[in-house]
Each structure stands twice: as structure tokens, then as C-alpha cells.
């Protein structure tokens, strides 16, 4: 674990990385590898590692390290390298404002209990703020406003970081991965998890979590159902559950009540792009994150982004991979190296919610991440007429990763490449 109490804060850096979660750590290392000298990683938490620190379950690193690690172990692999490569890490610190004043001159307002409010500058910035959880307000669950309605991530923090139990009889709304993980965790801590309720007709978490967190613990999963009312004046005492029709409209006449003292929300993540907005970078309304080119650069030169700030990832391994690229490109930007400009735009087509990055260069290899809208068996991912990849099964909770090699696009000469996920003929 690394609690980076900076002894000496410099006024100028080559690269400032905002966030020390998996994205920020890999990006900082990438920048160093590309030759950037003065690198600062800033994090508002007390310890570097981001959300990994409270993810004490296993399942991390299968792709990246080819072994199964816990969250803190996964973070530790990076933190060791960060220390060894003398990258400055400043935790319990906060970037309150940020401005791109000139091509290689970004001004940041850095707040900390150690130095108060300071202004620092950077040549390049990597945005790695991650995501926040969607709250009750954002999904507008009607009903009373008692204590006991909280996000799954906050519950995880209470249990794993403080040894505090947020409730004894728990209902979980949403089958996102954090909700599934917490269903198991709270059960192991002695709480009764009444069930997981998902408004969509399909689960929203990884298949392995459905098996290991719900089935193995006999926790029921109710699809096409949602919480339509919350009861209790001071603390939650029950919730009303209703099935939804195909338009996701609750069928109140079929509703029932479930006594509980806690409602946990695992209803999605929102990329944290307040700083991105302050910089004036263009955002993709679908991902909620910045539009990025194949070097993970946003529309503001010298500002790069990676991880959940760009789009919500389901596996940390892909975050690290993407952040390494963003960090390297930020490092290259600082030392004056450039890669060939992008010449192809990716357009999400049939059954594709989004693709990242948003543009490509036909003379390099790229990893393209895309998310489908509907589950589909025996499907085919088509990049226009140029390239087709067959996949057994796609579903919205699992990112599809495609490696695009220059030779795949040899015969392609357009400017825009449409990406479709279609049933195999």
C-alpha cells in the first residue's frame, strides 16, 4: 500500500495523472516508459490504488498477469513499480480546477491538507478519475427518504475498509458486478440478502459473478423486476417490488413488499468527467466519457484519458492495457514524439452502443473496445466490408475486444468504418 504524502511538491510537471486507480497507475508507468521525467499522480483517497483497495475478492489479473489476484494485490503490482521508478504520488489531494492555457501548458488547482491550495502546471495530463455510482436520485425511486439506502460501493467501503455492517436484512437493486459481489460479501458477514432485483430481462454483471456470488449462496435473482417504493420514516423498513413489462414499466397490480432495513443500489456507473468538462474536451453522449483518438488523446491536445473515465470497463485488466497506451502517448507527447495521425473514424452500427477509441490510423495495430446493445449468440463483428470476426456470444455487460491489424484494413480506403454486430449467416 502506498500513502503518498509528498514531501516536496514541484510547481511544474511533465505529466500529471489525475487518479491513482488502475488507470492512473498504469498510465504513470506508461509515461515513464515513454521518457517523461517529472510525473505526478494525484488521488483524493488516502491510499493509492483506487477502488481496487476495497475489492478484497479475487478475480483480477487473469488477462493482464495470467493469474488470479485480489484487488489490493493487483494494485500492489503497479505500486511497486511506481515506487521503483520514482514517480511522485500525492494522495489525500484533489484537483479542484484545471485549464489548458496553451499547447504544452496546463494549469491545475491542487488542494490538500498538507499544502492547502496550490497551483501547479503540467505539459500533459492523463485523466484517470474513474467513475461514480448512480444514486437513488439519478434513477428516481419514489417513496420515503429514510436512512439505509446506499450504493453498493459505499457499502463495500464500510464492510471492507472499516469493518462496519450497513444493515442486517438487505435488498439489492441492480445486478451490476459490485451488487453481486456485495450480495456475497454481506451474506458472509452475517446479513440476510433477500434478493437481487434487475429491471432488465438479462443480468447486468459478469457470468462468473452470477455463479460465484448468487448461485453458490442461494441468493435469488429476479429479472424484469424493480423497486417501486421505499418505506420507513427514520430507517428503511420495507420496499415494494414490482415486475416490469417489456417497456420496463412497473406493473403495480402485481407488486409485493419485502421487509428489509437496507436497500443497496448497484444500478450503474457514471464516468467522472467534471474535469474533462472544465477542459472543454468533447464528450460522447453514449459513453459519458471524452471522445478519444487512437492514442487516447481527447479533443484537447496534450490531454489524455483512460479507464472508466472514458467508458465503463467490466475488467480491470483492460483498464490497465488501455491506460498503459494513454500514458505512453502522454509521455511521447511530452518528449515531442508523434504517431501518425488517425485517418479512419469508427461509427457504431447495428447492435453496437459504442466503440473506443473513436478514430484509428490504418498503419498501426489497435485494440478496439465495443459494447453491444442486446445479447446475441453466434454473432459476427463486422468492420464495414474490410474485416469480420466471429464470436460465440456477446452480451451488454461484457466488453468485446477486437485487435485490428493494419493488414485487415489494407483494402479499406474510406474515412468512416461502420461497426456492426450481426447474427452469423
Amino acid at each position, binding site marked *: 500500500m502506498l500513502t503518498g504524502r509528498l514531501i516536496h511538491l514541484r510547481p511544474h510537471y511533465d505529466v500529471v495523472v489525475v487518479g491513482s486507480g488502475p488507470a492512473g497507475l498504469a498510465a504513470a508507468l506508461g509515461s515513464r516508459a515513454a521518457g517523461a521525467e517529472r510525473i505526478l499522480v494525484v488521488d483524493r483517497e488516502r491510499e493509492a490504488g483506487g477502488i481496487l483497495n476495497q475489492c478484497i475478492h479475487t478475480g483480477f489479473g487473469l488477462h493482464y498477469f495470467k493469474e488470479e489476484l485480489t484487488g489490493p494485490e493487483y494494485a500492489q503490482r503497479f505500486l511497486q513499480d511506481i515506487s521503483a521508478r520514482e514517480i511522485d504520488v500525492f494522495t489525500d489531494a484533489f484537483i479542484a480546477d484545471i485549464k489548458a492555457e496553451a499547447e504544452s501548458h496546463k494549469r491545475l488547482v491542487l488542494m490538500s491538507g498538507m499544502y*492547502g491550495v496550490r497551483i501547479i502546471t503540467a505539459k500533459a495530463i492523463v485523466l484517470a478519475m474513474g467513475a461514480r455510482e448512480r444514486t437513488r436520485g439519478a434513477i428516481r425511486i419514489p417513496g420515503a*427518504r429514510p436512512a439505509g439506502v446506499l450504493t453498493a460501493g459505499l457499502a463495500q467501503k464500510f464492510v471492507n475498509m472499516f469493518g462496519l455492517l450497513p444493515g442486517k436484512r438487505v435488498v439489492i437493486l441492480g445486478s451490476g458486478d459490485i451488487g453481486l459481489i456485495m450480495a456475497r460479501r454481506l451474506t458472509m458477514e452475517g446479513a440476510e440478502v433477500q434478493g437481487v432485483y434487475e429491471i432488465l430481462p438479462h443480468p447486468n454483471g459478469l457470468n462468473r459473478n452470477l455463479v460465484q456470488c448468487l448461485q453458490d449462496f442461494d441468493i435469488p435473482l429476479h429479472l424484469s423486476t424493480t423497486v417501486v417504493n421505499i418505506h420507513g*420514516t427514520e430507517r428503511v423498513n420495507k420496499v415494494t417490488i414490482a415486475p416490469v413489462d417489456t417497456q420496463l414499466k412497473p406493473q403495480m397490480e402485481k407488486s409485493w413488499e419485502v421487509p428489509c432495513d437496507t436497500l443497496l443500489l448497484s444500478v450503474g456507473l457514471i464516468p467522472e468527467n467534471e474535469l474533462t468538462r472544465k477542459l472543454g474536451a468533447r464528450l460522447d453522449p453514449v459513453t459519458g466519457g471524452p471522445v478519444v483518438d487512437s492514442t487516447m488523446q481527447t479533443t484537447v491536445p496534450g490531454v489524455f484519458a483512460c479507464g472508466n473515465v472514458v467508458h465503463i470497463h467490466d475488467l480491470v485488466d483492460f483498464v490497465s492495457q488501455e491506460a498503459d497506451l494513454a500514458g505512453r502517448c502522454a509521455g511521447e507527447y511530452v518528449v515531442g514524439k508523434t504517431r501518425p495521425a488517425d485517418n479512419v473514424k469508427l461509427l457504431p452500427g447495428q447492435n453496437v452502443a459504442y466503440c473506443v477509441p473513436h478514430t484509428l490510423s490504418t498503419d498501426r495495430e489497435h485494440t478496439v473496445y465495443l459494447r453491444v446493445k442486446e445479447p446475441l449468440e453466434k454473432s459476427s463483428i463486422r468492420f464495414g466490408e474490410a474485416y469480420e470476426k466471429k464470436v460465440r456470444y456477446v452480451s451488454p455487460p461484457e466488453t468485446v475486444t477486437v485487435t485490428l491489424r493494419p493488414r485487415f484494413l489494407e483494402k479499406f480506403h474510406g474515412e468512416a468504418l461502420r461497426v456492426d454486430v450481426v447474427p452469423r449467416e
Partner: protein
Amino acid sequence: MIYDVIIIGGGIVGCAIARELMRYHLHVLLVEKNCEAGFGTSKSNSGIIHAGHHASPKTLKGRLEWAGNPLWDALCRDLGFGFKRVGEITVAFTEEEIKTLEHLKWQGDQKGVPGMELWDRERLRKEEPNLNPDLIAALYVPTSGVINPYEACFALLENAHLNGLRLVLNQRVTGLRAVPDGVLEVQTTDKVFYSRFVVNAAGLYSDEIADLAGVRNFTILPRKGEEYMLDKRLTGFVKRIVFPCPTPVSKGILIIPTFDGTLMVGPTALSTPDKTDLSTSTAGCEEIFAAVKRLAPGLSERDVIAEFAGLRAVADTEDFVIGPTQLKGFINVAGIQSPGLTASPAIAKLVAEILQAEDLRLVLRDDFVPTLRKPVRFAKLPTEAQIRLSEDDPRYGHIVCRCEHITEREVLDAIHYGARTLDGIKFRTRAGMGRCQGGFCTWRCMELLQREAGVPMAMVTKRGGDSWIVTQPEAEEELAEALAPEVMPC
């Protein structure tokens, strides 16, 4: 000890009366059933200081609204709560509605509301470009304002306390009767107090208090209002409070640019028999956004970060019920529905007059301190000022609430001046009011309450009572009871 005055209820009305009475040589006690002041109707409303042209001068509430409006500048200057005269506009879609605007303007002119202007389409477009382009006119009234009503409660109470008010929290009044020598006895869940005068400012429960005194001649019929808070990236979307053209029954659904820059839309108005029903509803949300989208097509329910409901303490007379009763010394200040917030400083002055008329000797003190320390709203300061402040105290650099950029020092101040719950911190500092709704600051505030106020993390509540955040080991539950203070420092 026999008090001169006991005030029942620490909402905006009770707090304003308490502060007004502390100007005089009096022994005053305020009894509040909740763990903090202002946690009832006063914290859950539209937060508007009305100009005075909406209400008819024939009613008591209409007169006190008009009298209350100009008193807020001095109060704000002395006490530092969030208040700003942003002005309001009432808009019209049709020629018919313009006639209503003209009537409102006439009514305002009669009452002497200053600075009103009728705007044509072009002017409205220029001043508020995000409103529906189909709007053809507006009545602009500059003296309307927005206020953080909970901050006003805390500040009034804190100032009253500074000047010697005694405050009792967490105690509900359970009995009230006359005892010999012109003294009233007030029984609470914990104790008995004696006083020559009792002011019933119990809001939603004022009819029940009057009942205890045996002089009930009105009934409170709670009327619920739902409000929805929108994401702060919409700050500046409208500059003024936007009213639709009123109908005979309702002022309608408003768009309110709050003091802190958050847009708030609402309220609904629905009678409910249950005085604890603070639930929001799908129907309420739909009603509000249908109305809001008509005024400003750029807003939608997707922008919501939080919602709440409040209950207006409406008396069956539909007007304020203020005055002495058949029980000598027992004064009602009840039925304080909208525009009660606006009227509250004028109500306080009226109550002082009534007490005097009822033979309470009012002698002005020369040691009354009208002001409080100036609160620091760190996030609103320019960077240079922030740097200077944080050089003196680096806790101003330590962020506790990342959405609203609230610092450790501000939370410590809140705890120092009485916050003992998460809502107490939230309504004093804004920590937890932002888009993540406490995901980041909840445990940080709990830690600070533990460190600074000695409330163990597992015993911190959202707003007192059974609103626990995490479960407590049984041994700690007993400790909690042992530690529960009966008199809180203000």
C-alpha cells in the same frame, strides 16, 4: 426556574421568534423534538423569499409576507446565511395570461412592491434565453430572492443561543397546563419546565400542542410538496425564479436557481393525512417535469440528482393562526404555510408585540450581539483568496465533499457549532448535497464526528432517532443511550 417564554418548535418561525426575543431582558427556552433545529418543514421547501405581489393584502399571510420581505437583508448581513435577491419572472404563453400578469402587477403596485416590469417577448428572450421561445411576455419582480432556509434556522438559533437562549433538543412536549400564580407547566418526554408564556410554533404539530393546552380551535391539514434537484452543470440555466402564469388555485411548478447554483424544480401540492409522509412519487415527478418542460424544453428528469418532499403546515382556516388564546399566556403561531418563510421575521416581531400586549415586559438589552462570525463558503472564493486562507489553515485545502468542494475546516466548523448528524453537517456545509449524494463524504463525515464530537462511527445517524447508518454491536447500543445528551451545545 420559571422562564419568561418557552417556545415550542425550532423551525424557522420558532428560531426567528427566539432570536427576536433575545433582544430583550428575558429568560427564554426553546424546546425541539428533533435532534437539530429546522429538520421539519423548514428544511424541505422551495427556499423563496417572495416579493409580496402574489398574495392578497386582505389575509394575514399576505400582510406578513409583504412585511417580512425587506427584513431579510439585515438578517443576512448580520447572520451570513445564504440569501440572494435574484428576482423572479412570471411568464405568459397567451394574451389571456398577459391579463393575469397585468393584474399581478396591479396587485403589487397596490402593496408597493418596487421595481416591477412587464417584459415583452424580445426582452424575455434576451434575459432568459433558455426558456420556451413560445413565451410572449413576463412580469419581472426584482425583490424576490432565494435563501437556504436551513442555514437561516441554524444561524438564527445560533445567534439566539449566543445571546443566552436555552435550547433543549430531542424532547417532545407531552403535556401543557396552567399551574397557580399565572404559570404554565410544560411537560416533555424527559423533563418539566415552567414559564409565564408559551409560544406554540410547533408547525405540523401545532394543532396537537394546542390540544394539549385545551384551546384547539384549528386543524393542521398537511399539504405535501415534492421538489427535484438538478445536476450542477445546469448552473446559470435560468438567472431568476421562473413562475408559470398562476391559476386561481395554484402558483404552479417553478424553476428555482437556488443560492448555491443548483436548479430546483417543484413543488407539487397534495393534501395528505400523515404528518410523517415525506415520500416522493412517480406521479409527482411526472407532474413536475411535464410543467417544467413546457417552461424550459431543455430540462428533463434525466438531470435529477436528488428529490425530496416537505409538508406545508396548512391550517383549515387557510391563513396564519397567530395570537393569544383562552389559556392565559399560551400564544399560537400556527398554520404557517407559504409564504411563512418570507414572513417569519415579521411574524417574530408580531409575536413580540403580542407578548407585550399580554403583559410581558420587554426591556431592550444593550449587550445584545446581533451578528455571527462570517461563514466561509470556500468553494465560492476566488483561487487567490483560497490560497491565502489555506496558508493560514491547511484544513481548508483538505476536501471532504468532492462534488460541492467542501473542506475539512468547514465541516469542523459545522460540528463545532452544533452538527451531530450527517444531515446536520449536510445542511450546514452542503457536504453530501452534490451529484454523488454522499458516496464520497459519508464515511469522512462520520470519521470527523467521531474525532471531533466523540460520536463513535457506528453511532452516527442521518438525522437522529432510528436513522442509523451502520449496525451497532449490542454493547455499543447501551453506550449510545448513556451518551445521548439531553441538552446539546448550540
